[in-house]
């Protein structure tokens, strides 16, 4: 017996049971049949035709007008039948899109992968979590032959796929920078020209770039309109904003960036972030930078990587596990 015949038989049984005795048990059978029909893609017009045929079989003496009314009902249900089929095909398409985006997200992950340098002087922790599948934040580490460590963090204004596509470009622009040009201000100036030249004018990128030299413990940095990070001074136990002025990437190709310097002492921390961190929204509104400092303090005794992981988990919980923006947090902790 094929599915359709089987279905008709079930419908016949359930309907005749119900007509004999109008009880909930038979109606429950009806609900189960409804699910089966959906499972086997039976459209509403077929159900009505099935119903009419069953009635004719069960009550041959039924007035013709009553039976005719089902032909009218069948015609009315045609539109629902078409809408139902469209819905199924759209669902299928959505599934395909989802799979495609998942693959794209994996490709992006591989493309943007960066290795966290392993040096004695600095303990490094980094985490970057996209709000949706694809990430519009990006961070990057490089280590040159003089053991200097470059750290870049960038955020495309906007999120999702367009932002992610844009980010891949930054990564390749960074990779093609000449070795000797890792001075933060020249990195930002080069990238600014690339972005201005290649990216849609409606898209802007904020970026922070820092360079740490373990030999003289200098941290030099520059910012292109990026969310300011924090600096933790171990000697005084105070946190301060890592302020740096600079225009967003892609606005004006002649933009010059200012470079700032800081001497990093033992136990000091450099905290870099994207606005997805500070724009975490809890029930009481955006979190304050103070709240964030509180979280950092609470986790300060941990390894840098554990710190960023923990802070992410705590912020995720505070906003009920709904990320509104891509989230990136980097902590550099000085050991010398």
């Amino acid at each position, binding site marked *: 017996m094929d599915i359709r015949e089987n279905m008709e038989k079930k419908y016949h049984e359930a309907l005749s049971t119900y007509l004999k005795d109008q009880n909930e048990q038979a109606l429950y059978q009806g609900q189960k049949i409804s699910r089966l029909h959906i499972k086997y893609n039976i459209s509403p017009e*077929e159900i009505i035709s099935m119903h009419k045929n069953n009635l004719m079989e069960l009550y041959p003496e039924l007035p013709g007008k009553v039976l005719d009314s089902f032909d009218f009902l*069948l015609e009315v249900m045609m539109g629902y039948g*078409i809408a139902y089929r469209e819905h199924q095909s759209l669902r299928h398409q959505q599934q395909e899109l989802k799979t495609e985006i998942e693959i794209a997200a994996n490709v992006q992950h591989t493309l943007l992968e960066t290795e966290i340098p392993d040096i004695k002087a600095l303990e490094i922790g980094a985490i970057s979590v996209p709000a949706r599948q694809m990430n519009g934040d990006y961070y990057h580490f490089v280590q040159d032959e003089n053991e200097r460590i470059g750290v870049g963090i960038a955020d495309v204004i906007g999120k999702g796929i367009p932002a992610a596509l844009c980010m891949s470009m930054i990564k390749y622009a960074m990779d093609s920078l000449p070795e000797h040009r890792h001075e933060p201000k020249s990195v930002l100036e080069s990238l600014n020209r690339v972005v201005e030249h290649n990216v849609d004018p409606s898209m802007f990128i904020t970026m922070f770039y820092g360079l740490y030299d373990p030999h003289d413990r200098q941290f030099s940095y520059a910012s292109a309109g990026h969310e300011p990070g924090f600096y933790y001074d171990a000697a005084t136990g105070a946190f301060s904003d890592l302020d740096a002025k600079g225009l967003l990437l892609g606005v004006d190709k002649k933009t010059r960036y200012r470079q700032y310097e800081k001497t990093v002492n033992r136990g000091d921390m450099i905290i870099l972030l994207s606005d997805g961190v500070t724009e975490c929204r809890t029930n009481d509104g955006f979190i304050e930078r103070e709240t964030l400092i509180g979280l950092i303090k609470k986790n300060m005794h941990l390894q840098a990587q554990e710190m960023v992981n923990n802070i992410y988990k705590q912020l995720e919980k505070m906003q009920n596990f709904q990320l509104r923006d891509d989230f990136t947090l980097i902590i550099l902790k000085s050991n010398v």
Partner: protein
Amino acid sequence: MEFQSCVKIINEWDIVAARQLGRNVAKELGFGTVDQARITTAISELARNIYLYAGQGSVSIEKLNINGKSGLKIIAEDQGPGIEDIRRVMEDGYTTSGGLGAGLPGAKRLMDDFDIESIPGEGTKIIATKWLR
């Protein structure tokens, strides 16, 4: 070709005439009520498209008998503005009339074969077939 019959679509009532013609032929060929309704709805959608977007045109119904298989063929033709982007009008969820699932993709789903040719500025020809099982 054994039989062909044609309805000119000029005003809305001609849609009814086209439906009627399609239903009669479908019945003669032995299509069941559900398939009759599907064929009629497809004709309705195609005729409505002519009426709404081309102003006028025609819907012809043909009986087919190929290798012992019977079928019904709808030919909807107009000399209207034509369709610039066929892929787009065949897309689900895209409809200018705002209805759910209506229009050409809806008509296509109700039939077994569906073929569309259109030249912008010259007109559109749609051939749709349903086979008797």
